[in-house]
């Protein structure tokens, strides 16, 4: 586990750069993380990110794309437009959540 500084705040991250402490995240950090992977945040992006964070808090795991689309109400095609190529990974990265398990 490593430590890095984002927006002047020290945060812990895993070896792929996913934040590991839920409470160290704030919107400013989310914005910086998004910029780092080339995502320009709009209200629609934030709606998705906040769903991820709320759902993680309630369920204890990073939601799957299917869950974001059925429970979060943003369809999969749209998620691929908002977070191109690898939405599951990108959403979790910006939301400061563990990389989705990808299942077993």
């Amino acid at each position, binding site marked *: 586990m490593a430590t890095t500084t984002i927006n002047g705040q020290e945060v812990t991250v895993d070896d792929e750069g996913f934040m590991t402490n839920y409470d160290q995240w704030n919107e400013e950090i989310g914005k910086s993380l998004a910029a780092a992977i080339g995502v320009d945040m709009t209200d629609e992006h934030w709606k998705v990110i906040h769903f991820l964070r709320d759902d993680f808090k309630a*369920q204890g*795991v990073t939601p*799957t*794309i*299917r*869950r974001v689309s*059925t*429970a979060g109400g943003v369809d*999969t*095609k749209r998620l*691929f437009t908002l977070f*191109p*190529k*690898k939405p599951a990974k990108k959403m979790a990265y910006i939301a400061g959540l563990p990389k989705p*398990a*990808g*299942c*077993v």
Partner: protein
Amino acid sequence: MAANKLRRKLAPNEWEITVVDADDNHRYQPGYLFIPFGTYKPTQVTKSRRKALNKDVPLVYGEIDKVLPEENAVLLTDGRRLDYDVLIIASGVSPRPDQTDGMTGEEWGKSVFEFYTYDGSVALSKALANFDGGRLAINIVEMPIKCPVAPLEFAFLADSYFKDRGIRDKVEMTYVTPLPGAFTKPIAAEAFGNTLEEKGISVEADFMLMEVDNEKKALVSYDEREVPFDLLVTIPLNMGADFVARSGLGNEINLVPVDKFTQQSKQFDNIFALGDANDIPASKAGSVAHFEIDIFVDNFMQYIADKPMSHKFDGHANCFIETGAGKAMLIDFNYDYEPLPGKYPVAGVGPMSLLKQTRINHLGKMAFKWVYWNVLVPGRPMPVGALMSTTGKRTDLIDSK
């Protein structure tokens, strides 16, 4: 298996156990993999449920309409009502081709097949026999699926099958997966990825299937990649039973959310979900259900005695992976440890080797059918531990990754 084990533990004058199932056909599902290649005949994978069940456990044939968890009752579609003190949901998952656009279109049953059902594997055996070359795509729609290694095994066996028929050079095989590689866990993914490469099977990774285009005969992903096929063998989305959703007990794919150590429902203390029906972060595999039930039975005895459940299931799974030409690999893993090389079940000795292709592993896989019917289903004890062991395994590989 749970019913058979519990029946032996619970006093007959205190506990009644009733099993509800749709019919009397208990399928040996691991056998579906072999039907398309003619290794097993369809008749070899079916036995009577009634005969597999302890004679003191009544078997009710019927379809479940829904569970009324507030009333502790199960309603059947024909109107019958069964009251319970404790409910165990073990209704598994089923392939749902209807959940993907175009999958059940015109090409379904012509060039689009699956082998996760009895009928599907029988239909595919005919299609494979008539296939004389072209593009074969093997596709996983979405994880989790039952037996996550089965699509890989299908690819390996298909490679051998076409070689035996002398047409391997006429078949172009592509493995199309939503995962970043051949498998979910890195060290095993590398071993399986190498095996695919050795066999000349190309991998289309990170492929989230949006639709099956029947006109073009192609898989189309959300990021607009296309994989054309002459024959598609797909693993459709796997979902839990619809009655779970109708009862308000399921998540977005009808799996019952449970505590991952005890399999107790997060919503209702007197409901447990075992095997594929629950949402634990372990493989949906027969071995998981088997190890899980060993732990569950001990917990259940504490639960009914009003004691805290002290046994923790660790997500233990082990799977044989047929790699073709009479060889197989074996993996053994749990919540905390990914599959590692080593020996199994006895550390340093084996006789089976983890993450290596050997003849002994293949014999183990074929012998497993006997073990399934004669040891597991009747609920007799297996001579391997329910919890995973790291002894004799290359745990040093984890940090080097």
